[in-house]
């Protein structure tokens, strides 16, 4: 490429074949004689196109009676915008970078606090021979204080949560997770089993089967802590913690819960619809190509091919229809939603109905854009038409072959492929000439002569 660019020539070059004609007159004559004939059709096409354009412009002028640009003189135009008629989308501004920074800090803060609490929780709820069992024993208290030092009873006179002052009826208690002094009313209790589940599902990010059952059990809970111990009939081991630690654990639990919300089945079904839509559009383009080919009389495809693709199309079509019908059922049933939660049910139902509506619109568009299968008659007609135009072409070609003079109808069958070949080669040769590939054109020309020779022989036989 670089070489051809470097190889610039000057002078009266023919724009078509790059021959240097010496002067303007010669160039004009050359162009008229050599190229005008070849490209007359193209040029003619161009001219008529231009004419049409001009006409439409004129029409525009004639249609508008009033001076159509009366006000344009009063407005300036931005030269950058001048050439494009398209309107760009308006300005925008993003705050996401700042948002992310703030969120990162906040999440980090939460994360460290949660991790700290979970670590303590793990130690406190760990049951083995080294740790004293849960209960109001001295060893246990010592153990608990070794994990998080308790605040001195003597320095605290009010509850760190509700600020009520302690007295005879309001006893002091300690949060086992951060050691603060709280009253009984402000105490929350967490079961050992719940605590273990939270720790387990938090530490392992990958879902093992063992783990998923833990999570399943966890998901069934509403809250991880309770304000009274009486509720726990089983008399299980539990820890007393303060409100703020309880909130932190509750949050952690909600995170786990949110991460593990199962995908609602409608999403799977929806993916099926999308899959089928993709298939349909793929098959459709093939189908259209086949039908076009058949209806223009070509024999590359048979009606069988079209039928086959058509069958595939209807499979996808049916699939979209049947799957989307399921959504109507979903809309009525609203599975997985609490019977009494009317607003959620309504929302779910709307979603499902809208998906069904979407599918219906999709199907309508599909059936409109896909033509039906052509009938035998139509195919026959198309083929006949093609045959006729082929014959006419052949008759023309024959006239150009030197040495052969005969009517198309008299032509023997063996000769036909020769003539087709001959026609194609002449086409190639013209293309080569137009593109300026002289060597190739010469080669093709000799080919043609050979062909003509061969045909003459065959014809005489």
């Amino acid at each position, binding site marked *: 490429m670089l070489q051809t660019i470097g190889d610039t020539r000057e002078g009266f070059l023919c724009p078509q074949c790059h021959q240097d004609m010496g002067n303007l007159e010669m160039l004009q004559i050359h162009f008229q004689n050599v190229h005008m004939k070849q490209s007359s059709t193209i040029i003619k096409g161009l001219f008529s196109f231009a004419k049409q354009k001009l006409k439409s412009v004129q029409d525009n002028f004639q249609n508008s009676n009033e001076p159509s640009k009366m006000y344009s003189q009063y407005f300036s*135009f931005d030269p950058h915008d*001048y050439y494009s008629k398209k309107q*760009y989308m308006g300005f925008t501004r993003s705050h996401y970078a700042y948002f992310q920074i703030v*969120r990162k800090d906040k999440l980090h803060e939460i994360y460290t606090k949660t991790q700290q609490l979970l670590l303590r929780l793990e130690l406190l709820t760990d049951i083995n021979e080294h740790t004293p069992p849960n209960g109001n024993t001295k060893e246990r208290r010592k153990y608990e204080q070794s994990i998080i030092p308790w605040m001195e009873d003597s320095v605290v006179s009010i509850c760190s949560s509700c600020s009520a002052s302690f007295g005879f009826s309001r006893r002091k208690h300690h949060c086992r997770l951060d050691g603060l002094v709280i009253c009984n009313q402000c105490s929350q209790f967490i079961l050992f089993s719940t605590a273990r589940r939270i720790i387990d599902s938090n530490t392992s990010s990958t879902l093992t089967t063992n783990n998923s059952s833990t999570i399943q059990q966890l998901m069934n809970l509403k809250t991880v802590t309770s304000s009274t111990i009486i509720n726990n009939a089983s008399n299980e081991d539990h820890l007393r913690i303060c409100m703020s630690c309880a909130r932190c654990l509750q949050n952690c639990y909600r*995170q786990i819960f949110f991460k593990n919300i199962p995908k609602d089945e409608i999403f799977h079904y929806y993916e099926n619809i999308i899959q089928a839509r993709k298939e349909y559009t793929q098959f459709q383009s093939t189908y259209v190509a086949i039908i076009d080919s058949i209806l223009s009389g070509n024999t590359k495809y048979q009606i069988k091919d079209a039928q086959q693709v058509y069958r595939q199309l209807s499979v996808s079509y049916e699939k979209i229809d049947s799957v989307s019908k399921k959504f109507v059922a979903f809309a009525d049933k609203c599975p997985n939603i609490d019977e009494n939660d009317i607003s*959620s049910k309504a929302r779910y139902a709307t979603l499902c109905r809208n998906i069904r509506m979407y599918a219906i619109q999709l199907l309508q568009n599909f059936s409109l854009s896909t033509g039906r299968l052509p009938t035998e008659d139509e195919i026959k007609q198309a083929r006949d038409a093609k045959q006729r135009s082929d014959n006419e072409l052949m008759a023309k070609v024959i006239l150009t072959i030197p040495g052969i003079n005969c009517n198309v109808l008299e032509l023997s069958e063996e000769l036909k492929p020769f003539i087709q070949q001959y026609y194609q080669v002449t086409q190639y040769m013209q293309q080569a000439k137009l593109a300026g590939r002289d060597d190739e054109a010469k080669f093709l020309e000799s080919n043609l002569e050979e062909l003509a020779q061969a045909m003459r022989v065959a014809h005489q036989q």
Partner: protein
Amino acid sequence: MTNINLIEAVRSYINRMIEDCGPTIKGLVMDKETASIVSMVYAQSEILQKEVFLFERIDIPGQKSLKHLSAICFLRPTEENIQSLVRELRDPKYGNYFIYFTNFVELNDIKSLAEADEFECVRVVQEYYADYLAINPHLYSLNIQSTYQHNYEWSDNLLRRTVQGLVSVLLALRKKSATIRYQKSSNMSRTLADKLSSTLKRQVDFTASNPNDINQTIVLIIDRREDAITPLLNQWTYQAMVHELIGIKNNRVSLSHVPDITKELEEVIMNAEYDEFYANNLYSNFGEIATNIKVLMEHFQEKHKSQSKIESIGDMKTFIENYPQFKKLSGTVSKHVTIVSELSRLVGLYNLLEVSETEQHLVCQGDHNDVVQVRLNHFKKIYLHLLILFLFNQNKKQKIKRLIKNDKVRDLDILRLLALYALRYERHASNELNTLKYEAQKHRKLPEKYIQFIQALLEYGGLKFRQADLFNTQTPMAITRQFIRGLRGVDNVYAQHVPLIKDLIDQLLRGKLKDTSYPNVNAKDQVNQQSSSQLQGQIIKPSEIIVYVIGGVTYEESYHIQQMNKQSARIIIGGSYMHNFPSFIDEVLFAAPSSLSAASTELLSSKRR
């Protein structure tokens, strides 16, 4: 030239939101205002095709989480919305949030959102400036029903909302700065201009452009009080007429009061984006629509006939191929036929042709056709004209009196005439408003509200406030112009009136709009630049003009702007509200100084509730 298209601007924002969210099941979360903004430019069926399956309001809380849904939150940056969003993010209903605010957001609000996003659901936080209702490509509204507080001043809320609306129009059309001109006689328009200018300057991100740029956008701020006449008139172009006689609200028209209406036509959507007939006839006058609807019906019947005889499989096939278009067409036909026949029923029922003719005479002098035959020299012409004017004053009074006695004419239309008369002859020596009022009370019981309205209107848009010559009566120049217009003859007696805004824009374009009446808000900063360019005698050509009318705009004004834009003007018009006469009555009464009548505001506030 590039198109400036308000509808396209909003649509491209919404398209981008949906695209950025990706090919999943999406929900669109909006507030009350953004819901209208979206519904003005997008049909639900179209948005459905982009896999948006849920439409929700941010202010309706508490539902079961559908984690695998993505939410596109398109919200105004109001305090309530931020709070609702914080609540939402703390307990997310969706798995992903793509948040778009229609205007500038405080960094503090971003911070509270970020801190609430403990589940890390937010993917995008952007400002997309689609903060106005796009009614037509050149027409917008902020949907503020009552702009004026007592004594015709701003309330902080409405001023903020208005500035936001104007800023968003500019930014949505990719304009970073603007030359702001305002009506000097109106305090409200000066306050708005100042606030708009300072807001634009404060937003560093967008004001990087060169202030000496010749491709300036001009923002022209006008107070409705300057032209209280236009909202009083009956209208005869399709869109304006429907609004005046039936009422258009967010592209919806309620036909439930129409006799024998079928269920599906009780409320129809009139959106030029989706309705070809409507798009082509928005600005046609009543006569043209009647012809066009006839063509439409014939076309339909032809199709209908060909559809109805399905004999062969071929017929069947063409039927199915044409079916959606057919269905669409039949919907359009029945809708427009219903509306047009309702309009013509009302026109006949209320004798609107005669009313409108009288209105136009009141506003645009007498019937000049009588004068045309008289060919005298110039001065005599003017003299004669004045004489005729006087006679016609008498004549008009008689006409109004006759209409008052005509039982077919509505009270509402009598009120239009009385109001026009009151404005027209406010300081006229032989003002007989009281006689007319008396006549009106004698023959029909006008509601108390109507009588108060006339008083309130004089306060609102009387001579005391106005600076422009609304009736072209003061200067000999204006009279001559009016007279020449009369000599040329009038094409359409029902559409002689040309709204003041068109005149103002014409003056602005020709560089004749006086700086003393309509100063430039930045005049102080740009004194040098201004004076130098004026010395050279050249008018700065604007790239486009954006008009804002405090107190609302009318479809008649929209029509005139559209006619100018058809001739290569680049003008966008909008206001606080799309007024018709009934809504204008409410606004004028609401704004009336409390001294005028406590009863009227009471009446109104009870209605508001």
